[in-house]
């Protein structure tokens, strides 16, 4: 009762009994800690309903309130392609703009954003304006092993890879591809691409970004019968490519050129009659321990490879065994595993929210929702 009286007196007398809150300074802008905590994630919202205006949203999925989850964002135009450097405090988006929004003069660029401030600090013109615009993947823009180069996938519909010198901020070469797509970093300064006839081609580049050598891995898969997804996980230089029918093709990308590794069936024998298959938009993820995560669905058949699924399976790729099956709370379309020793599994679900699970136990922890996202179809663990 006395406390209430005192408080009332304070209000009436203009707060003479309590100090005022300090006046705020105009113009304060926050910056982000460096390095980013290992478990942060870039959520790429391609804004399918208004593609000009996509977003890259940096989130902390361990946090329990929106106030703590949403760290910052920047815009990315026309299904941008995203890459991160671990040696420079930068991230990169390959974007397409028109002088009048959706029309007019086209210009393709790679915009360089600084990690602490999320401000555009440089622009690298992609002369020729051939940047591929396609449903987002992780290898339409990729850093070379030594991070001196960026590889940008071009599609006119003829395909090629733009070679960008990161330090010089310049497109230095364009490597024509023989009916192949994407750039999977190979060795220190090279990339490999999967090709229409079931082969793989590898290129190594010299100091000037010109082709130093080329090697073809002869056709090793049947695109009609059991296609490799073009969305692998690359962990410690090893590429893990799931196939439409539920196999895994390992491809060693550590050296100068791609070398075929093991191929094994992801589905335990007893479960194969249920026709479990991988599927989704960005259906693959990996954690720092090198475990492979895949969205899986039963009753798989021709045409279900982008459907997503009700479960995520986790694999020890070295032992070729499944470690666990995680049952999803809501049907999943895309996944990513966070970095660090205690990974989380993030799942973009059919409601376009992001479910967060403990990757070890499979327990659902929270759902990221109402943070301005619309079609967050690919996530990238912060590096």
């Amino acid at each position, binding site marked *: 009762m006395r406390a209430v009286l005192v408080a009332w007196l304070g209000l009436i007398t203009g707060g003479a009994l309590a100090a005022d809150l300090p006046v705020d300074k105009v113009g304060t802008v926050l910056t982000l800690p460096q390095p980013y905590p290992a478990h942060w994630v870039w959520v790429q919202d391609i804004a*399918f309903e208004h593609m000009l205006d996509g977003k890259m949203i940096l989130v902390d999925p361990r946090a329990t309130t929106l106030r703590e989850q949403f760290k910052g964002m920047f815009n990315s135009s026309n299904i941008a392609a995203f890459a991160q450097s671990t040696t420079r405090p930068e991230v990169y988006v390959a974007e397409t703009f028109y002088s009048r929004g959706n029309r*007019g003069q086209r210009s393709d660029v790679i915009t360089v954003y600084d990690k602490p401030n999320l401000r555009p600090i440089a622009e690298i013109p992609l002369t020729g304006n051939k940047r591929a615009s396609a449903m987002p993947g992780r290898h339409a823009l990729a850093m070379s092993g030594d991070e001196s180069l960026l590889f940008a996938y071009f599609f006119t519909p003829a395909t090629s890879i733009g070679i960008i010198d990161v330090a010089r901020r310049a497109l230095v070469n364009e490597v024509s591809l023989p*009916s192949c797509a994407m750039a999977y970093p190979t060795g220190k300064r090279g990339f490999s691409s999967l090709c229409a006839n079931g082969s793989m081609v590898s290129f190594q580049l010299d100091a000037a970004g010109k082709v130093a050598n080329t090697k073809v891995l002869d056709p090793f898969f049947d*695109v009609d019968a059991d296609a490799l997804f*073009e969305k692998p996980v690359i962990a410690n230089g090893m590429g893990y490519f799931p196939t439409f029918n539920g196999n895994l093709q390992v491809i060693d990308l550590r050296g100068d050129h791609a070398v075929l590794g093991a191929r094994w069936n992801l589905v335990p024998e007893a479960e194969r009659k249920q026709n479990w298959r991988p599927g989704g938009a960005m259906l693959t993820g990996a954690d720092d321990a090198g475990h492979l995560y895949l969205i899986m669905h039963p009753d798989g058949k*021709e045409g*279900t490879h982008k*459907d997503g699924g009700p479960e995520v399976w986790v694999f020890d790729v070295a032992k070729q065994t499944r470690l666990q099956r995680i049952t999803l709370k809501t049907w999943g379309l895309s996944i990513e595993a966070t970095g660090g020793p205690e990974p989380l599994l993030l799942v973009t679900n059919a409601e376009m929210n992001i479910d967060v699970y403990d990757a070890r136990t499979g327990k659902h922890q929270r759902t990221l929702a109402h943070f301005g996202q619309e*079609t967050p179809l690919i996530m990238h663990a912060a590096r």
Partner: protein
Amino acid sequence: MITNWLDAITERMTRSVAQRTSRRGFLGSVGATLIGGAALPLLPVARAGGGDGQPAPPSQDPGDPTSCDYWRNCSIDGYLCSCCGGSMNSCPPGTDMSPVTWIGTCRNPADGKDYIISYNDCCGKNSCGACFCNRNERDRPLYRPGTANDYNWCVGTKSIAYHCTVTLILGVATTPS
């Protein structure tokens, strides 16, 4: 709204195998013959009335083009131009039809034939936003563009702004391809 995605996936999850118009169930049929473009009989346009959900009257081109289940949509990825001021074979006003595209084959339930369908995009304006549909029969990854619906195929027009997708009949297929 993109929540169509949830509907489309739910539909697919519950649809029984018998109802799917998958070509796989009928492979090996040698009864179908090739009809060249010029000789193709003019099909009546099976236009449903204003999206009121009523099925089109029985015809050789059955079904509702504004429905994801419409037979021509078996490998489509995007907005259905029938919902955007166009039709299943025409672009909405003020857009440009991209000539380069991906191509699929779909089984017509009315006549049992596999038609070759060209999924041309209408371009130059922002996403239509109505009637999103993604089906992937015979779709393959980006390294085989001719059957990859994940590309923005507006590369053939002045602006890559993607608006909606039409379904053009190019002919009838003779063999599984």
